[in-house]
């Protein structure tokens, strides 16, 4: 008899009790994360918005006083000729990085879909530049860009060309940091696009080959259209990440020479932490957030479309 009691009461308990403590327990599990998000995202972002309307200086940290100035910080930032420079550099840096790291990543991904000896080992070796701390990559490239002792100029001299003042010329510094960032971005594009390529059924290629389609036609009519959703995600993510690149530029050029590599991100850093104009730094930061959010939402839309397609 006693054995029957739990057997009878258990389902009832299972039916009633979990529903009540489910909600409560679930919230307990979520509580640390929610508290963290509130304290470390919610509050700072709100503070950043407030700060962008204040004259926040070093003194403010001691006195706690930061007079409200309305949109003066934004006005100062937009009036500053550096805003145009930084916006243009950000656009050039982002576009240049994306085009080449995607193009090279795609070419490598197509190359590595072929099965050959050493394929997967070589492919994983190519991940290394992506896993390295950006400061390390930046330092290495800075050494390679060295005007007198760098290996790039040694190579140029070897083939009879003139040495290039990579980091001291306002014309060459931006291409130099873009080149560095392309190198860093190739592995990411390679891995994601490789995954996308592997998902395309081999039977399609076989059928196309039987119909006499050449390699280019197979790429044009099968690979490219079927890869499109993954392409969208890679480019969107690349965009969102590249707009806010900081480490690479700081280590390779520090934003110079003469602001030739100053982007919105490095400028925001400079305003806040070198000029101690925290209000203006926050204003530039908020402009960046706006840009990143627009592209971020586009990314989420394309990601959703891909997920829906994958599920269908």
């Amino acid at each position: 008899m006693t054995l029957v009691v739990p057997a009878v009461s258990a389902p009832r308990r299972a039916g009633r009790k979990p529903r009540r403590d489910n909600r409560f327990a679930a919230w307990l599990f979520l509580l640390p994360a929610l508290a963290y998000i509130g304290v470390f995202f919610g509050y700072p972002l709100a503070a950043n918005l407030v700060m962008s309307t204040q004259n926040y200086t070093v003194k403010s940290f001691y006195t706690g006083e930061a007079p409200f100035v309305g949109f003066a910080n934004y006005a100062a930032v937009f009036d500053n000729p550096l805003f145009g420079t930084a916006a243009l550099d950000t656009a050039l840096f982002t576009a240049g990085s994306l085009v080449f790291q995607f193009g090279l990543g795609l070419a490598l991904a197509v190359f590595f879909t072929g099965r050959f000896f050493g394929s997967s080992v070589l492919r994983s070796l190519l991940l290394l530049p992506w896993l390295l701390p950006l400061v390390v990559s930046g330092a290495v490239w800075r050494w390679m860009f060295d005007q007198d002792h760098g290996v790039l100029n040694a190579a140029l001299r070897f083939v009879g060309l003139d040495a290039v003042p990579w980091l001291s010329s306002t014309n060459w510094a931006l291409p130099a940091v873009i080149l560095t960032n392309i190198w860093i971005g190739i592995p990411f594009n390679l891995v994601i696009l490789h995954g996308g390529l592997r998902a395309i059924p081999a039977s399609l290629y076989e059928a196309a080959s039987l119909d006499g389609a050449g390699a280019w036609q197979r790429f044009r009519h099968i690979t490219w259209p079927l890869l499109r959703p993954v392409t969208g995600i890679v480019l969107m993510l690349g965009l969102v990440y590249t707009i806010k690149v900081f480490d690479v530029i700081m280590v390779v050029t520090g934003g110079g020479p003469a602001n030739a590599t100053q982007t919105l991100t490095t400028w925001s850093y400079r305003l806040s932490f070198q000029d101690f104009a925290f209000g203006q730094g926050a204003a530039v930061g908020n402009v960046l957030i706006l840009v990143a959010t627009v592209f971020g939402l586009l990314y989420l839309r394309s990601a959703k479309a891909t997920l829906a397609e994958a599920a269908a």
Partner: protein
Amino acid sequence: MKAGTRTVAGVLTVAVLLFPLYWMVNASLQPSGALLRPDPAFFPVDGTLDGYRKALSSQGPHLLSSVVVALGTVLVSLAIAAPASYALAQLKVRGGPALVFVLLIVQMIPGIVMANALYTVFSNLGLIDNYLGLVLADSTATIPFAVLLLRAFMVSVPKELTEASRVDGAGYWRTFFSIILPVSRNALVTAGLFSFLFAWADFLFAVTLTTGQTFEPITVGIYRFVGNQSADWNGIMATAVLAAVPAAVLLVVAQRYVVAGLTSGAVKD
């Protein structure tokens, strides 16, 4: 293209793309004087470990600081992310999907904005130049990532498994510890690895939230080393090699996890 030709082409491609890394190791082994000759030596024939001696003596404490910060970030991230992922994946929570959306969005906030905001908050709380402060700041990047990655994994844990443990009388807490965590081991390793790598490589929070008075992570150490305009490229490159070690080790030891994390972070939700 024949398979053999492809292998050769592949090796050549990898050699070209990884040349900067070779160049870093090469420079780390050559005396500073040799590095400043007009024609660079392609092999460290007059090799020296001087660079590594200098790196360890001047940057050793910074390497250690980075280890502490990175391990701390792993602990904090997993401790906060794992329970949250369990709730989002297995327990029906109202507002769960909204929270997932919030986590996706906050990953897109530029780090410089977080640094700017956290600096003012931390200076009020006395968390500048503080290990805990840097760990908590680094976690702003790793927690959203870890929650999304762990949730994606835990969704696929069969409900039969957790319901069986519930019927056996285990509470949520027990189910979480004795069922969910053990079966999620691989996902936890992946999330932990990425948290470690991020915190190890972080430069932005490290340079804004420390002043170098108490401690300084290795990334800031390299930055200051490079910025000194010193011609000591041998020492700088040796430090860079040491800072690259965790990434190289992880690639060899845990390659499977790295690729899994890279793709799940980007393509899956």
